């Protein structure tokens, strides 16, 4: 027995050992290093760092106006994108959850935008919303409305970014669809006999049945939209163009850490603050989830 045990232990480390090394080298070390760096003024130009105590955190929280703006932009962006994306995904999933002819084609079409790489999406929408000759402004002109600046105007750039981000709602949609297909059909038949309206059916049958998946999607979309980088980076030319109006947190952090002046210490503090924000928001989502999730298992 103990021979077997010893053999098992040896084999276990032979097979799974690599992940322990990977975990220590690529997760544990970087986290402690980031915490360490956040209390220094390290930069790529000046790797001989000094300890500066809480200075980086103070600078970010008390004085850095651009950081405050980026944080505000990120919240605005995340709230709208998460809420609208979820609504759209649920609506699309409910439409797709019907056995009618050609439903497979519609599912593929609804999913298609998601597979378009972000670097292409940014051109699609910059062309679509182009202030001078984009399709949207031309259509507005036809109905007699003066075109707006969309992404070229700091007042409307954020809205344009939000709309463009909504395009790929494919993943939450598929998750909702899988959950909807699990709801027993007999429930609806009974409800139909009782003469329940569609809204009542949704409130009493559908929503409670998918509430756990709903919470899951809420958490996922919130975290995803708070972390999103690519589209904002591309549409804002890497600098939150125009006039920082689309500068998201992740873009600001990127520019602080990996572009001139490569202030790794300060960026580490920003990353830690961001992590705390993510944790708090996820905890809030869990708390809110308690109010509506009907737990059956």
């Amino acid at each position, binding site marked *: 027995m103990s021979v077997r045990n010893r053999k*098992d232990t040896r*084999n*276990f480390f*032979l*097979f*799974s*050992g*690599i*992940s322990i*090394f*990977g*975990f220590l080298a*690529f*997760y544990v*070390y*970087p*986290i402690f*290093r*980031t915490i360490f*760096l956040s209390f220094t003024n390290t930069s*790529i130009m000046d790797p001989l760092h000094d300890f500066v105590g809480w200075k980086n955190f103070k600078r970010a929280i008390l004085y850095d106006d651009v950081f405050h703006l980026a944080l505000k932009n990120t919240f605005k962006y995340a709230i709208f994108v998460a809420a609208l994306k979820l609504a759209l995904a649920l609506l699309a999933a409910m*439409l797709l959850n019907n056995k*009618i002819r050609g439903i497979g084609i519609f599912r*593929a*079409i*609804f*999913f*298609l*935008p*998601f*597979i*378009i*790489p972000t*670097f*292409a999406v940014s*051109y*699609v929408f910059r*062309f679509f919303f182009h*202030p*001078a*000759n*984009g*399709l949207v402004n*031309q259509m507005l002109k036809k109905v007699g409305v003066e075109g707006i600046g969309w992404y070229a105007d700091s007042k409307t750039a954020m809205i344009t970014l939000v709309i463009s981000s909504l395009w790929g709602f494919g*993943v939450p949609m*598929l*998750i909702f669809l899988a959950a909807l297909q699990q709801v027993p059909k007999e429930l*609806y038949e009974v409800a*139909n006999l009782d003469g329940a309206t569609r809204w009542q059916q949704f409130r009493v049958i559908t929503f409670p049945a998918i509430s756990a998946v709903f919470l899951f999607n809420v*958490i996922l979309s919130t975290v995803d939209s708070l972390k999103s980088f*690519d589209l904002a980076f591309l549409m804002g030319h890497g600098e939150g163009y125009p006039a920082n109006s689309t500068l998201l947190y*992740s873009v600001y952090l*990127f520019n602080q*850490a*990996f572009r001139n002046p490569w202030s*790794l210490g300060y960026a580490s503090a*920003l*990353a830690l603050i*961001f992590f705390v924000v*993510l944790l708090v928001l996820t905890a809030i989502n869990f708390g809110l989830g308690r109010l509506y999730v009907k737990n059956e298992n």
Partner: protein
Amino acid sequence: MTKKSRPVTLFLYISLIGLSITLLLPLLSLILTSFKTFDESVGVYRWIPKQFNFKNYRDVFALENFHYWTYLRNTLTIFVFKAIGTILTCTLTAYGLIRFDVKYRKILFTVLLSVILLPGELLAIPMYQIYLSVGWFDTYYPLVTACFFATDVFMIFMFRQFFMSIPKELFEAAETDGASEFKIYWKILMPLSRPAIMTCLILYFTGTYNDLYGPLLYISTPTKWTMAQGIKSIEDIFNLGPRDYIVPWNLVSAATLLSLIPVLILFAFAQRQFMDSMARTGIKG
């Protein structure tokens, strides 16, 4: 679902078609623009080009500072190494986790899973410093190295789930026949895992193809760029005037559409598996 009355079905079709058109419009507009002349593409918007010609596509390949095939080759190179590393090390780890009954395995699995919550920014800065200090800037090593150390916890999770669905008796029978553990892994488990490996390949292909953050950090020489970097910079090549106002949309559209071809081919051939894989990525968190 129960049989639907006619008005309900009609309503469903109208909604489905309406949403489909909204989603396809931007793409359609891009496709049509790729056939326009420069003047048409920057002038007053018209849906249909006066003449469909493929000149823009030829021009894109002829551009001096845009190298489609190079970008595609670079991206595929990175993809192949990432996929090989992840599939090898994550299946090994997952096999160890399901096969050997040692007391640490539950702890190890839980600890590994906990990192799913960590945002990438928290890890990127120290790694950047390390990779720069060992002189790996402007190479692909920083993009692929981590994959060879089973760092994709979600893949470990996915492979583990898949392996648990394989009957244990299969491994035990092979063991009685005197097969070594590595032989069981390689000759029995891996051939059976084709669907899971396929899922991993699809996710890694789209992931690598999409990735902008990594290449932006580490790759600077234009001939080493990935497709994401190449397409991102195509408007800079022309540099025709103030930002956003004079972009040669006909060429940009053609180049953008060319960049979509690999993903669209994959989607066309493995649509079902593609969507299943993506839906499961959602679980990634």
